């Protein structure tokens, strides 16, 4: 039993290591293109809504806290409190995705999805009021946040499973490693967002929009 728990924890850490490498490729692309096209990134960053991004950051950090509390109460074997905190985490995670939906919707309405220009050659390519390399920033933004949102969706699906198990009273003082391991995953997704927020939203936050 002890060995199994240890194995599961090591396994999850290794999996998170692969995830770091997975996102790492995009962070690499980000660094290269930011060095190459500072102006495009400056202007692209101004297209994003800092209040919404900031709200999402707060939401996710709080959800990490509730998740940690959930793990704590699962170790004490308190089923009710565990369920409550898991439900809070679920709500906060969903709030994050809802905010994300509105953000994406706004981008699509302004034709700021890079592929739009490919399939509508008649449209501005890219819109003339923007710097030519905003497009590079935008695909990085969509790919990074999209991949992150996908991880959130997977996380929420797993959370539902964990909650169902908790509801059935599967977790005791002795057996709670699924909660703990899922907690690791949730914190990882949170940390990725904490990196994404300053890199994408706050780049040039203190600089007036310009870049031409």
């Amino acid at each position, binding site marked *: 039993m002890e*060995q199994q728990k*240890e*194995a599961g924890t*090591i*396994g999850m850490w*290794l*999996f998170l*290591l*692969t*995830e770091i*490498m*997975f*996102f*790492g*490729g*995009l962070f*690499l*692309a980000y660094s*290269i*293109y930011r060095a*190459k*096209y500072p102006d*495009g990134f400056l202007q692209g960053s101004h297209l994003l809504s800092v209040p919404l991004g900031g709200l999402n950051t707060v939401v996710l950090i709080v959800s990490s806290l509730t998740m940690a509390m959930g793990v704590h109460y699962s170790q004490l074997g308190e089923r009710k409190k565990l369920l409550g905190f898991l439900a809070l985490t679920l709500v906060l995670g969903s709030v994050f995705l809802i905010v994300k939906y509105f953000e994406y919707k706004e981008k699509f309405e302004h034709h700021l999805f*890079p*592929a739009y220009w*490919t399939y509508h050659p008649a449209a501005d390519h890219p819109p003339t009021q923007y710097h*030519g*390399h905003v*497009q*590079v920033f*935008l*695909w990085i933004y*969509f*790919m990074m946040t999209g991949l992150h949102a996908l991880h959130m969706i997977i996380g929420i699906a797993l959370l539902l499973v964990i909650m169902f198990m908790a509801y059935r009273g599967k977790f005791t003082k002795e057996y709670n490693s699924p909660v703990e391991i899922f907690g690791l995953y949730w914190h990882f997704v949170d940390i990725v967002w904490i990196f994404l927020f300053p890199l994408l939203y706050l780049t040039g936050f203190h600089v007036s929009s310009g870049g031409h």
Partner: protein
Amino acid sequence: MASEVIAQTEEPRVTYLNAGHTVKSWLLTLDHKRIGLLYLFSISVFFAIGGIYASLIRLELITPQGDLMSADTYNRVFTMHGVMMIFFFLIPSIPATLGNFLLPLMLGAKDVAFPRLNLLSWYVFILGGSLMLITIMTGGVDTGWTFYPPYSSIYSNTQVTLAGVSIFITGFSSILTGLNFMVTIHTMRAPGLTWFRLPLFVWAHYATSLIQVLGTPVIAITVLALAFERTLQIGIFDPKLGGDPVLFQHMFWFYSHPAVYIMIIPSMGVVSELIANMTRKKIFGYHFVAFSSLAIAVFGFLVWGHHMFTSSQSMYAGMVFSLITYAVAIPSAIKIFNWTATIFKGSVSYDTPMIYALAFIGLFTVGGMTGLFLAALGLDVHLHDTYFVVAHFHYVMVGGAIIGYLGGLHFWWPKITGRMYPEIWGRISASIIFLGFNLTFFPQFIVGYLGMPRRYHAYVPEFQVWHILSSAGASLLAIGFIMPVVYLTWSLKYGEKVGDNPWMAAGLEWETSSPPPPENFTYQPVINHDAYEFENVKEIKEAAAREAALQTA
């Protein structure tokens, strides 16, 4: 069997093979040994497909004109040969078959750490493989196995996206296998089995798993980006939209160079086992051989730029990559010299596995040394993308990885099946493979040095003699590869039944019965000695005791 009637009072021993006979019991098994055999079967199919493509290439190149197929078809043929052989045969070959089968046995464990994950990895592999087969049926890919943009992202009108998705999925199988092995080695060792008592096979697999876990996600994100670029044209690698095609090469080779070490390191682990057991000696410099595996794994992540000397990267980057590439020779040479030192004054038996091991040493040395030619910046400008490169990596991948794989398969065949393959046929086929391999690829060094570029289906007539030699060798090689399939299959039914430890080998996997019971060990093994200490082998102990009894009598 039928001819002899034995009054059997007891049931036949339960082994992992007869623990269940239904198809379901195989397809839903959690037993690492059965999963290893599932992998063995599936990668053999992929190997056959890759081999058919290889023979098509060699047939086309017999004549200087492109008369067997069009240039377009030829592009698809060499691409699918590369994709099949690399992603679906070489990368899973030793870890997923012998590794899955032997790792828990060598550790004295009941199974791997995550048995269900292990089965999942096979299904993921089959899913990826099926998608690749669909890719083949719908026209294949013509970009070369490296999928370089902008050709792959804009111009190619073949199934690049589907192939990318297939590789993305198969990558997960590789990650799961690696993750499983690492956790297994960390948590499932038998009591007393410390890190420096592990067989070198396990060390090699630890290093391999490290690469699989750290490298594979990078190619996953790379092919994902390529698929987005291809479907949406959003400017990731397209210079017209501000992207950078060389970024793809960096990201691709950051995985794909370590990937060639995924192919070779397990093979080195197998060869360490073969040489120690076939020369009846403790491996020379155990710690060095163990750590050189890790060193190769670490260096593997630092040399990806040597594929890109001619790709506009800066001269200083080229110099650094060149230097580190030379450094890879150090751990490789440590292994080679330690093996030769082990053979020195050993009591060598030239059975089939040993022939493979010796072939490995020779061919891997040639392959590695020509790697140093290619690591030299100036020389690489001439040799880049010629047949010299093709010959070099075939010497390492076929002459290293596949030879090691076959050697290991022969060595552990009695453990896997409880029966021995016909030794004489084993030796013949090993020799044919060795000869055929050299005849196939040595001329390619020469023709590459003379300037024959790779991936061309027509060439100048001066090169024809080398290509004819090479194609002749390829037919020998084909015979050599088909023979083991025949006699190993034959031995499943008619092979001589041998005991638990026909080689008198040292190692935990030989202490359980052959084929092993479903739980591997009927008792909890406890280790109190180092690896490769032959005086501790049960059979040898018994023989020594009998000897002593005769002396006193």
